[in-house]
């Protein structure tokens, strides 16, 4: 089952423009702190672990596992909201698409795909590997 929900455009601001510019090229990047070496989510210009502003955008593996999820039934088109723990460490909110919703399980491996939004950059979502 493919997700058919219309996805609103993400809010883009000066701090996150680089992330969304990469997304327009279908590149999934994660913010790393060059000072402490840690990846974080959601992306910020100031490292939430050490406070440094030496943030670098690095290409992410685009793989992860489902930390938790829920099939939203009370919607025009059911959709799956989820948290996926990335290979780089942090856990991010996303959607799971392109699968039988009833067969999903926590711990399942997933990989990133981009899905179009109203009139903004595409957003990263995941589907089972």
């Amino acid at each position, binding site marked *: 089952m493919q997700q058919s*929900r219309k*996805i*609103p*455009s*993400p*809010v*883009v*601001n000066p*701090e*996150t423009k680089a992330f*969304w510019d990469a997304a327009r090229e279908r590149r999934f990047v994660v913010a790393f702190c060059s000072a402490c070496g840690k*990846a*974080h*989510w*959601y*992306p*910020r210009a100031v490292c*939430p*672990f050490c406070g440094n502003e030496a943030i670098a955008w690095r290409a992410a593996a685009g793989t992860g596992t489902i*930390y*938790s*999820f*829920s*099939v*939203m*039934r*009370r*919607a025009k088109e059911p*959709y799956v*909201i*989820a*948290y996926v723990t*990335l290979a780089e*460490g*942090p*856990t*991010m*909110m*996303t*959607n799971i698409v392109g699968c039988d919703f009833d067969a999903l399980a*926590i*711990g399942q491996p997933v990989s990133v795909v981009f899905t179009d*939004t109203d009139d903004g950059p595409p*957003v990263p*979502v995941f589907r089972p590997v």
Partner: protein
Amino acid sequence: MTINGKAYIAGAFEHPTRHAPDKSVAQLHAEVALGALADAGLRREDVDGYFCAGDAPGPGAAPMAEYLNLNLRHLDASEMGGASYVALAAHAAQASALGKCNVALVTLAGRPRSEGMATGTAPRLRDPNQPEAGFEYPYGLTTANGYAMCAMRHMYQYGTTSEQLAWIKVAASHHAQHNPNAMLPQPVTVDEVVDSPLIADPLHRLDCCVISDGGGALIVVRPEIAKSLKRPLVKIIGAGETVKHLSAGTFDLTTSGAARSGPAAFAEAGVVPADIKYASIYDSFTITVLIQIEDLGFCEKGGGGKFVADGNLISGTGRLPFNTDGGGLCNNHPANRGGMTKVIEAVRQLRGEAHPAVQVKTCDLALAQGTGLQLGTRHCSATLILERE
């Protein structure tokens, strides 16, 4: 410094309405304010501190202070979602302890039912400047599916079942049948809960709270004022508050801020969970109750499913009587914010003024627990411990 014994809840009032299409939000705030003052035996002119949160027609406390024509020397408009009123009662005690006010008024009111709000199931972009907005709103985060992800993870980690969650609704409904104002006064069974339609897996329709108009208010006063009034003495002896968030992507959805605000409140009060005779536990969803009960220490982490099953939360038969007014699950969830009614029912229990069918015997120690905003992302937690003197 402690607030233990520095202030008393002298007045508490819950608006009887559950549907107020013909009243304004400001009017509802005013009606509950006057109701709580009458309950305390105080006058509007006595109020010198006003405490409100994001449901008050804002910005902050000024518009309602003007509407009520209050003459104030202390203001607090701390916004913590549904946990605000539990925290604001404690803030009022702090202000009282420091001599910043003598008579503090705390109000809550709203009319989401009249406004036809799809409270739990519609994605909402509250403020585009919220830094996470771009990384959450596109995915269709709603109140219901955010809490549902907590439930899903709790089931995965601890084997919690939908039937165990359903017992929380069953207990609330047993209490609500004695409340003439309750929106859902009919007792329900475990089967009825798990057979109700799924909203967001694994939460069913009957795992969710009601949507109602209404409000409530509290009057918090200095000890000498409390002792001059005719009402039973309900003393604030401990409080804690915190925010739990996604910690830059390193979070555990099975715990809540109650794991921090609870121990802080118990330490200040000098009591332990086993001492508590009655607990008001915020119940936006059944899972909210289960996680907070664990985090407050009423049972071990992961043991909440077993703890809440088989009527253990029902007054008169269970070990931990909870939400004897029917709670948000069955009675009332004014302004989509349950913290106020949590404190009000705890006050009723300590005064011996709960419905006789649900009144806890010799109820001298009670807890009110609030969770505000979204358990599945970032939420505020506030714990208040009250003693009958």
